[in-house]
């Protein structure tokens, strides 16, 4: 009898830990919305999202320049990262000898593990001066931020795509090779097309990381609230806006920064829904292999 009660209590206890992540999300949403909603309500949803003037001291809270900044940095970073990641993923899954793979795996894990502030710091002391020399200006720009973000999202896209490429049944490949196709023809016409849902999931996850990155972007993007006219102009991302101004924000300004987080939140939810649509479940890659 006692045993059964114990079993019952343990099961309930475990259930509570299991739903903890859902409770946490609800709590996060509640607090962000409670703090952010007053600003959006009083300034108007459309004015907030599509307003192009951010002047907290004058009570103007339009975040459009920052939405453009975030999307600009993100898509440029993807344009730089996707080709290299896909080539590297195919290399690891299909071409590299096992000795090479044993080097590349920890390399990609380490790339994923380096703290974002370290990337930002590297960007600040190496990339910014380099850009200044090459293209003039201050060196703080959308392009500089994208290059740093490219390196940061490489491991995400590579590991998910590699996993997708590896999960293609061996028969596909054998059939293609047996028909006399070369390795490249097999990759191009058989393996890669079959792995596309996984590859897209990897790209979406990389995009999520790029949109969410904060401090590395602050350190190199210039953080000006203007529409960029070229990739060499400085921009401010939504995330950066929060981190830069939260320290001294009061009153409606404080609420408007939580409002910025709401906009960010909707972007991420949109990506999550998109990722679920492609419905590719990644295996967990840790250390030297798959678990």
């Amino acid at each position, binding site marked *: 009898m006692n045993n059964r009660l114990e079993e019952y209590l343990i099961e309930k206890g*475990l259930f509570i830990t299991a739903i903890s992540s859902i409770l*946490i999300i609800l709590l996060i949403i509640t607090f962000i919305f409670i703090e952010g909603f007053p600003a959006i309500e009083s300034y108007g949803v459309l004015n907030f999202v599509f307003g192009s003037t951010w002047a907290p001291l004058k009570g103007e809270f339009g975040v459009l320049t920052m939405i453009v900044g975030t999307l600009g940095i993100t898509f440029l970073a993807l344009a730089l990262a996707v080709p*290299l990641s896909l080539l590297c993923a195919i290399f690891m899954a299909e071409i590299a000898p096992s000795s090479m793979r044993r080097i590349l795996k920890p390399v990609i894990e380490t790339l994923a593990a380096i*703290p974002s502030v370290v990337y930002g710091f590297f960007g600040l002391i190496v990339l910014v001066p380099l850009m200044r020399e090459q293209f003039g200006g201050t060196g703080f720009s959308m392009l500089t931020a994208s290059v740093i973000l490219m390196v940061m999202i490489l491991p995400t896209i590579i590991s998910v795509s590699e996993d997708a490429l590896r999960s293609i049944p061996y028969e596909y490949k054998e059939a293609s090779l047996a028909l006399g196709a070369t390795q490249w023809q097999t990759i191009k016409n058989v393996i890669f097309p079959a792995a596309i849902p996984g590859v897209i999931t990897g790209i979406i996850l990389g995009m999520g990381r790029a949109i969410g990155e904060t401090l590395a972007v602050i350190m190199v993007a210039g953080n000006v609230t203007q529409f960029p006219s070229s990739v060499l102009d400085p921009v401010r991302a939504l995330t950066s806006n929060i981190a830069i101004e939260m320290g001294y924000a009061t009153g409606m300004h404080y609420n408007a920064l939580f409002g910025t987080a709401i906009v960010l939140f909707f972007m*991420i939810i949109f990506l999550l829904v998109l990722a679920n649509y492609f419905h590719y479940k990644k295996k967990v890659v840790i250390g030297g292999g798959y678990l």
Partner: protein
Amino acid sequence: MGFRLISPKISQKIMKGVFWASGILTIIILVVIIGYILFKGLPVVNLEFLLSNPVDLGRAGGIFPMIISSMYVTLISGLVAAPLGVGAAVYLTEYSSEGHVVKLIRFGAETLASIPSIVFGLFGLSFFVIFLGLGWSVLSGGLVLALMALPTIFKVAEVSIEAVPKSYREGSLALGSTKWQTVYRVVLPAASPGITTGVILGMARSISEAAAILFAVGAALSVPISIFDPGRPLPLHLFIMATEGISLENAYGTAAVLVMIVLIITVVTNTMVERYQKKMMGR
């Protein structure tokens, strides 16, 4: 098939070269970044740098309080997130069958993993610091980081528990053990190397995070004694040193310490996973 500009054999050769180049380029990127940071930073790092307090806002002196702060927030995040993550993993693998609740729980963990760190930062400020009244403290910081570490620990623990062969459970149940006895004495010990790896990876995320604790730990330069004291973990220190242009040399040193920590964690988790795979899969 039509007219071909390049024969399949030649395009095969070209593409093979392109693939090799991309793999090597990825390695070069890592080596350049890590090499540069270590080359500039390691000369600054010595025992005195690690064990002394910063002087003049960090222009001189060391990073001892930052190391202690980092240890505090990382340990707190591990202590809070590990039971939650492992408990959730046990429930999902051992106690539930696939259904709406399980799907919802998985979606919850996935969503938690993709929330931007700065949003966690705002939540930490409004919930832990203000609403719960914990103030700017290493406790507030550690709790925020626990939320971020949770999905990592949960995911890795779940796969590790799933990897334990069914026969283990059947053997235990056949001997008359209850479900919990089976989980506690058989399944969890067998999965413990994988679970430990998950906890380490979760804590690795905590030790390298700065944006999420920006508004939660304060930025005090003194050594935190109790968990209610403010602190300044290493990544936050690096961010402040670099952006406020306080001391490039000490920023290099701090960055080098962070990179070394990351390298050590990668080596340790790799070794553990290799051992675990050998044990579970007999190869």
